């Protein structure tokens, strides 16, 4: 027999198993426990910290704990969403790693009884000048394109950042949003004893065995040899599964649906059983396998993709099977729900495993041992660049700021014909056919802020995601997160994680945005480097009146340009200090949650009152880049005059928070000023939309004067140039 450590179990964990079972586990059982107790499946390092996040709200139908979060959007409809990582697989096999990442999260949404309607991706890579990074980048983008396009779910938003800390360990986080009629939603509480378990979709093969454990280790030179742990993607099969599951979800006799992801059948069955204190009894001989001679362990742990488990009322199996048959899919009754609380697996008529289902899903939690990390200085003295216009152009071309058009044009972002605001803006917007409503969605995290101060960085991630929704006219509904960190057993990582949770909690509480689902990905490190703490925040907002959607682009000559929020000269960490001065270790911008709240409320009210022609969140690159983007999107120029005694470079490029750039007809200005006054929000008139150049003057001196055509060219061609270099 293999040693306990080979299964990735500690002596303490093994003792717990012995005490619970009152016997030694057999080989099949210990393999099942070992995978289920991996960090990836058990969340043993993060579970207790995650409980600090706010998860309740008047619209929340389902918070964390099911396959995805569910939020009420009225009209009997619900929006369902979740984000998940596929970092490790993408590090060794970028194409299939990313593709199966898309597939997995789509099935989570499908399992709730929803039709997937949108995908978002948050990606992190090393420096594009490295050949391996180019390979990873191209592979990941092609994988997402291959899978998302085929299944007909539009990829409508996302974000990409580049930094050397992601060279060996890229991050691939995928968010899926679904739409469901509330009466068709599926929850695990509907599971009852005697109900049948139907395994549908692909054949079960030997691929991806141990994938969950692989994702729960740090990457090393041996990781290359783990390539067989990466599953193979079959988007066509997924597309059929989507259609069949959406149809099946309409039947009340389908009690619940569970996707097969990490730890395959073992995880799916034990989740179904343990959540309602039941058991399952399955016959592995009934599982359709891809090849002969698969052992019980292999069948139980296979992570073959594009499979789902349906719990169906006894006697109603045929009706459900016929739906899958119509789509050319297999459906096999492999067992049933029992009363005894045990996960019982049979093979060739013999019991091969029999352990409490709850033992599988409740790994002993591991306490974090955080050690505070010394914070960096709040600011440093920097020389003033001679030519700010050159700095401006350099920033526009920075891969962290420039347009990601090169990427999102490889994704079908229009299929479904609901995409009203396309990728590349603060948030994407989908109308909901048959209603007057629309949904806005975004994913956001500046990892540079998080690396220096994870508490503030996490707050900013939440605030900025919310601001991205506000500027299109949406009320934030709820958020999902994907928390990417290094090895949690290391005290610094534990500290970063705890601070991040606190930051998210405080910002989400202040803005009243519950966390309804999420995912934690630890062990994103190699011997050489560790990723920055990267808590990606995915957020969905509701627009009640789809005729009042706002966008970032300047619209009409003569419109007044106004800044909502402080005209700050925040001299802290920003893309400008990183790119031009190579300074990364100063504190990130300050964030005042009360001010943030007021700025957001003021902007949303102004949009709802129809006062604004455009609104754009100021983020990386500050005011100057924000202005440039409004001009580029609108294909029209602007002239702005600032009167201020602060440093010109930080006025232009500083990343002070809680700021929104808007434009409006002059007649509405008085009303906007009144709104801002009521909310105690600073407001400043900067200039006008006009001509075909962007001109920015400070105290009467021209700092920027560039044709929009040129800045558009710089902004839109940069990424492709870096990839092809």
């Amino acid at each position: 027999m293999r040693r306990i450590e080979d299964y990735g179990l500690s002596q303490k964990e093994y003792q717990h198993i012995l005490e619970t079972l009152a016997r030694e586990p057999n080989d099949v059982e210990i393999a099942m426990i070992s995978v289920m107790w991996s960090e990836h499946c058990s969340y043993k390092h993060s579970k207790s910290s995650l409980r600090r996040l706010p998860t309740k709200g008047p619209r929340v139908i389902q918070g964390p704990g099911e396959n995805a979060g569910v939020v009420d959007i009225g009209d009997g409809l619900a929006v369902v969403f979740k984000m998940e990582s596929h970092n490790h697989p993408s590090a060794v096999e970028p194409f299939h790693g990313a593709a199966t990442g898309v597939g997995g999260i789509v099935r989570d949404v499908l399992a709730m009884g929803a039709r997937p309607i949108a995908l978002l991706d948050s990606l992190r890579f090393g420096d594009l000048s490295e050949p391996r990074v180019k390979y990873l980048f191209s592979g990941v983008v092609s994988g997402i394109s291959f899978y998302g396009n085929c299944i007909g779910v539009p990829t409508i938003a996302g974000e990409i950042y580049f930094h050397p800390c992601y060279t060996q360990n890229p991050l691939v986080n995928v968010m899926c949003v679904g739409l469901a009629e509330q009466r068709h939603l599926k929850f695990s509480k509907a599971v009852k004893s005697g109900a049948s378990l139907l395994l549908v979709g692909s054949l079960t093969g030997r691929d991806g065995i141990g994938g969950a454990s692989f994702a729960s280790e740090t990457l090393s030179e041996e990781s290359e040899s783990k390539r067989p742990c990466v599953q193979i993607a079959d988007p066509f099969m997924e597309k059929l599964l989507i259609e069949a599951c959406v149809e099946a979800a309409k039947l009340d006799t389908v009690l619940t649906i569970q996707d097969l992801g990490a730890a395959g059948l073992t995880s799916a069955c034990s989740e179904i059983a343990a959540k309602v204190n039941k058991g399952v009894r399955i016959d592995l001989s009934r599982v359709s396998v891809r090849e002969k001679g698969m052992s019980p362990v292999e069948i139980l742990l296979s992570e073959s993709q594009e499979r789902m488990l349906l719990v169906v009322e006894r006697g109603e199996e045929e009706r459900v099977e016929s739906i899958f048959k119509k789509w050319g899919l297999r459906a096999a009754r492999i067992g049933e729900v029992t009363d005894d609380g045990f996960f019982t697996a049979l093979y060739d008529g013999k019991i091969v495993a029999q352990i409490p289902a709850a033992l599988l899903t409740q790994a002993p939690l591991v306490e974090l041992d955080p050690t505070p990390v010394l914070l960096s200085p709040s600011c440093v003295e920097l020389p003033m660049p001679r030519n700010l216009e050159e700095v401006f152009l350099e920033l526009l071309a920075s891969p962290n700021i420039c347009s990601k058009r090169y990427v999102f044009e490889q994704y079908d972002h229009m299929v479904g014909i609901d995409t009203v605001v396309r990728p590349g803006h603060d948030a994407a917007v989908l109308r909901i056919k048959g209603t007057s409503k629309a949904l806005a969605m975004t994913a956001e995290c500046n990892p540079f802020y998080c690396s220096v101060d994870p508490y503030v960085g996490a707050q900013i991630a939440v605030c900025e995601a919310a601001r991205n929704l506000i500027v299109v006219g949406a009320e934030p509904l709820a958020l999902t997160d994907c928390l990417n960190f290094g090895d949690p057993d290391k005290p610094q990582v534990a500290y970063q994680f705890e601070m991040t949770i606190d930051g998210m909690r405080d910002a989400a509480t202040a803005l009243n945005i519950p966390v309804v689902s999420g995912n934690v990905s630890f062990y994103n490190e190699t011997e050489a480097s560790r990723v920055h703490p990267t808590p990606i925040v995915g957020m969905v907002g509701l627009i009640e009146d789809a005729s009042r959607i706002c966008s970032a682009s300047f619209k009409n000559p003569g419109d007044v340009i106004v800044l909502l929020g402080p005209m700050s000269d925040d001299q802290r960490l920003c893309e400008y200090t990183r790119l031009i001065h190579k300074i990364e270790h100063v504190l990130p911008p300050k964030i005042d949650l009360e001010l943030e709240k007021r700025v957001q409320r003021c902007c949303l009210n102004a949009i709802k009152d129809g006062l604004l022609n455009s609104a754009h969140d100021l983020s990386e690159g500050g005011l100057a880049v924000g202005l440039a983007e409004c001009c580029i999107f609108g294909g029209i120029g602007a002239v702005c005059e600032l009167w201020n005694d602060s440093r010109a470079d930080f006025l232009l490029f500083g990343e002070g928070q809680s700021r929104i750039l808007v434009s409006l007809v002059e007649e509405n200005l008085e009303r906007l000023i009144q709104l801002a006054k009521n909310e105690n929000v600073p407001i400043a008139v900067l200039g006008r939309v006009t001509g075909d150049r962007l001109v920015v003057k400070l105290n009467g001196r021209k700092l920027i004067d560039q044709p929009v055509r040129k800045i558009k060219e710089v902004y839109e061609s940069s990424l492709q140039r870096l990839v092809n270099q």
Partner: protein
Amino acid sequence: MRCAVVVFPGSNCDRDAFHVLKNVFGLDCHYVFHEDTFPPNEFDLIVLPGGFSFGDYLRAGAIARFSPVMESVREAANRGKFVLGICNGFQILTESKLLPGALLRNKNLKFVCKDVHIKVVNNATPFTCLLERGQVLRMPIAHGEGRYFVSKDELKEDQIVFQYCDERGNVTEDSNPNGSFLNIAGMTNERGNVLGLMPHPERCCEEILVNTDGRKIFESLITHFVRRQEHEAN
């Protein structure tokens, strides 16, 4: 006008086409599953929608042409019924030899999704009868295999219905998004009742989606259909 939208396994623009025909144009619209067949007079317009029929793992449209429904589509086409193949539908039409030529991998080998401009080359078809020759439309494309190829002796000039062009209608290499032969974006059969189109007219038929240029193709079809009926009644 009674319309059918064919659903192949892997079709993913079927519901979009259905929505536009039914809810935007108020037409009588039905889904037809790929395993089903129908009598040739059953539908006046048959749409083969976009998507990845059978995953397009072999060659786009290569498997779909063997579906039983394609026999019915062929017969309906022979009777002069309208057949509109959009994107994957266009690929299926060339694979089925209902249209000449073939659609190859895009020149840059990448999937491309964006708005393009197309120019009306032939307005003497039922699909373009309300359009002017030389008129420029803006329409989204979304495909990985859209590079149209046809040998010169297979091609009759008036079968080209749309060409990729720039905003002002110039047919240039820069405005060709996939490397198509002669910038071809849309082709018809000799009789003019079957149209294959790489751009997606169903994606630009509603005000809320900003662009409504796609309406003109469906409006042309409806107008042509009504005129023909009036003509036959007389």
